């Protein structure tokens, strides 16, 4: 019972945050809504029993990545979002499209899902289990992902570094 109530509270927080993200016109308000979404998701993970994943979700996503988002918005001093005639079209087409899409996803998950629903507290919680999955069962995908991230970092460095011809500043 308590599980259900808490699940609904976090789910509502999650959806409200996501809707607010789209509705807000200032990037910093949207970024903060995204933090709420991340935090609520961590709550849901905790309810399912995946305590390690929940803690990491808060530390990595809410505590580090979103801080960098906020940092960039602050640094660029991004202004209020501008509305163009195109955004009205996007609104008219986007909202029904989103509703149809989410209805499809819900129908697929409820009716056609190959895996059964997870009961509260049934997901692998302890870090040992996660480590076994990550470094034993899924070792290759894990390593390939890390190479992908490395390539992304190198790409960022190349893009951010000044061209070779101009003299280095300062």
């Amino acid at each position: 019972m308590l599980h259900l109530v808490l699940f609904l509270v976090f789910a509502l927080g999650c959806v409200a945050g996501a809707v607010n993200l789209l509705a807000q016109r200032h990037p910093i308000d949207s970024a903060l809504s995204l933090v709420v979404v991340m935090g609520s998701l961590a709550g849901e993970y905790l309810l399912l029993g995946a305590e390690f994943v929940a803690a990491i979700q808060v530390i990595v996503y809410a505590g580090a990545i979103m801080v960098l988002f906020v940092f960039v918005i602050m640094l660029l001093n991004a202004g209020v979002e501008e509305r163009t005639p195109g955004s009205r079209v996007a609104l008219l087409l986007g909202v029904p499209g989103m509703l149809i899409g989410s209805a499809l996803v819900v129908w697929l998950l409820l009716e056609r899902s190959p895996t059964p629903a997870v009961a509260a507290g049934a997901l692998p919680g302890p870090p040992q289990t996660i480590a076994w999955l990550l470094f034993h069962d899924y070792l290759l995908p894990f390593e390939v992902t890390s190479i992908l991230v490395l390539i992304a970092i190198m790409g960022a460095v190349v893009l951010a570094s000044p061209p070779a011809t101009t003299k280095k500043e300062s």
Partner: protein
Amino acid sequence: MNITQFILVAVVKIVLAIWLLLTAVAYTVWLERKLVGHIQNRWGPTRVGPFGLLQPLADGMKFIFKEDLTPPHVNKPLYIAAPMISLVFALTSIALIPVGGWVRVAGVNTPLEITEVNMGLLIILGITSLGVYGVALAGWSSNSKYSLLGGLRASAQMVSYEVALGLSLVGVLILAGSFNLREIVDAQSGTFWGVIPRWYIFRWPPQIVGFLIYLTAAYAETNRLPFDLPEAETELVAGYHTEYSSMKFAMFFMAEYANMITVACLASLLFLGGWHGPVAGPAIVRAVLPVFWFGLRVFGFLFLYIWVRGTLPRFRYDQLMAFGWKFLLPLAIANVIVTALIVALRS
């Protein structure tokens, strides 16, 4: 334990913990003013009460009665929320910190912490990592150049040093094999040859490097000298809280000191054996002594914090970033690799 007892015990522990923390915050401020005063050949507060002991109370009253000024150019919702975010996350983390073993009061067995969680350490790190929003948003919503620069510096600095801070703890976690703070502390009980305590800084492989990295990164995480760039008063007036006055400023102040205490508690628990120490005497003394030993360690760390503040000059910002990324982080990674190798070879 039935449900009424459970709720009663929880409420008593919460009230006690918050009261203890706020009192500790107030008297850390007093200690700082007194100590820095003596370091600089001054007296520090002396007028209010003996040794100026009632000064924190007087300061609190002053903060409450001062005019709460909201500048006209701020982003009001975030401007009001920022100090709250700072303080809430600073106070929440104390809920998961154990200050002693189990006690039996009026027939109820209870651990000396608000709640015991398996992932205690990770959850504390998560909560403290959210505290940066308070500082960043304060800087941004104040809509002033100094505040913005302070907020930017704070968020960059805290995110950078959080990496080194987290990695410095991994050595201890490898040795302890648990995220549960109580289990980590219990693994450090006893002594080698009856003399050297089995703390993690004295174990093989020794975590002294991890401990020093943690200590350094903790100064940066709590924005204390020599890493107090976010509020460097010679360059930024007061950094992210330039536009704040009255109780809103006091909330940032309290959050900073509460974070200092949390960091000191974690250092004692993870590296210095928590509440373990010589225990003897009648039952009541046996129950209280561990908490006293723990308090002594935390006091030692707070003393060190203030001592460093009175001694070292401030870093330059590029030095701070270079130190964090080019020195502390590789050192922390090396510590993890060496510890893991030794543990793997031994088993």
